[in-house]
């Protein structure tokens, strides 16, 4: 195992994050804080509690998920896309490092950044609401699991994309709408019955539901079903990455 190679990629990616601190860390935290102010404090104060949880607290897991998903995808997709774009990928492809090790390096870095941002948002939210996390260990486990899973997904997008527009395509047109419609700001059972049924086809519903369960034990869907869905998606991403490297798809000519 090329541990030093994995660490070199990880360190390179993390140093890029700290080089662009305002864009990588401050920007998502600021955006989420604005959500707290608008939806939590301003509008939330006029909305009834949901299953005994004040609305301003209820939206915290959803807001963290909203940022985590987009951050994980953009971190890892950009991480692998940029070397392809700039030509520096030659060094990684000619190094004695396996596809699996390359993936670990990029995905761990992307997921670490997401987890850091998630924790900062969580700490920021404590300035706005009283935080009471019922299952903190599960909360951290889910934060890491979801960050890793969507970093893997972002990695696939980064390999598939051959221009900057494609990098934004899936996050903008699929992930963000699904996250907004996945119960970030509401509970699924607040929807009319037909929309509740449609929502169950939205995979993001399962992520938000599981994450919210770790906070308040309030859940739209059983935690087992949610965990199985997340793990299933993780395995799908791993299989896709295995075949991408095996076939050299969009990496080797």
């Amino acid at each position: 195992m090329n541990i030093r190679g994995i660490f070199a990629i990880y360190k390179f990616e993390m140093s890029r994050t700290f080089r662009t601190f305002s864009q990588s860390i401050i920007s998502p935290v600021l955006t989420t804080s604005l959500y707290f102010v608008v939806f939590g404090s301003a509008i939330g104060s006029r909305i009834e509690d949901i299953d005994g949880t004040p609305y301003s607290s209820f939206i915290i897991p959803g807001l963290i998920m909203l940022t985590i998903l987009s951050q994980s995808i953009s971190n890892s997709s950009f991480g692998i896309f940029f070397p392809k774009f700039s030509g520096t990928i030659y060094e990684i492809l000619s190094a004695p490092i396996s596809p699996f090790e390359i993936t670990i390096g990029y995905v761990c870095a992307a997921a670490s950044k997401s987890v850091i941002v998630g924790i900062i948002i969580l700490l920021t939210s404590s300035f706005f609401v009283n935080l009471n996390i019922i299952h903190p260990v599960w909360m951290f486990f889910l934060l890491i699991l979801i960050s890793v899973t969507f970093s893997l997904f972002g990695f696939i997008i980064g390999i598939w994309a051959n221009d900057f527009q494609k990098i934004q395509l899936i996050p903008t047109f699929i992930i963000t709408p699904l996250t907004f419609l996945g119960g970030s700001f509401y509970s699924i059972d607040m929807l009319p019955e037909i929309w509740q049924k449609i929502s169950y086809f939205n995979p993001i519903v399962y992520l938000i539901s599981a994450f919210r369960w770790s906070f308040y034990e309030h859940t739209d869907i059983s935690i087992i079903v949610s965990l199985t869905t997340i793990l299933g998606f993780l395995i799908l991403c791993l299989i896709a990455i295995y075949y991408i490297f095996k076939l050299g798809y969009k990496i080797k000519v």
Partner: protein
Amino acid sequence: MHAIEISKLDKRYDNGLKALTNINLKVKKGEIFALLGPNGAGKSSLINIICGIAKKNNGKISILGFDNISQYKQARSLIGLVPQEIATDSFEKVIDTLKFSRGLFNKKKSSTYLDKILRDLSLFEKKNQQIRTLSGGMKRRVMIAKALSHEPKILFLDEPTAGVDVELRKNLWKNLNDLKKNGVTIFLTTHYIEEAEQLADRVGVIHEGKIIVVEKTSKLLEKLGKKTLKISIKKKTESLKLIIKKYSLKKSVSHYLLNYDLNDKNIVSNFFKDLNKNQIEFEDLEIKKSSLEEVFLNLIDK
């Protein structure tokens, strides 16, 4: 065991372009091998396949006995690559990019070794500068430093001196000769025939994806090179006409040109004997040896 051994290598791109056909090549340990060829001949394709950047369709490549596919980790750990294009992360510091390269190749940290490379390549003063602040020539040296950062046994350089000024080119040649002295095998592709002539122990010529000749540089020149004797004759005489006919001299402005093979040892002395015998006096003479460029152009014209 050879440093590089390639047999029956074929490469066809998805658009149908046949980049390489039945390449068979052996590069000896410790030699400088130059691959010459016009644009699009397949030089970069060959390097990219050896180093694992591009896929092959057929054939086998081994690096110091390690197969570059089934034993890619062992094979690649012996290789350093300097690609044709300057590709670096502009915002990184010189020293950080070298540490990154060394780490990728699973080598332990060594500031002493990296500092030595930076000194050898006259980059030490710039080690803490961002790459974007360096000149084009310095960036190219950073690329070489990155390739050397993990102590490779074989160094591939794809057009290392393209767009580089004369002074830097000569410095790089010196660096490459120093590496050779340290036992590093060097495989370079170049447009500049002078580069191959100055550096290479052996030369391969590739044209339209096929290697058309591999030979020692000196032998190739000897085998295919020509010499031209340029002579100015004082006075035209009848006997000169006979000599012109005998030696097939060509008239060029005020001179006569005698073309002969490098291995034709007696022709010059016979020619002067004949001039002497016929009392033909000459004013000036010059002997020009054909360059590798002329040999190369002759080869690809055939």
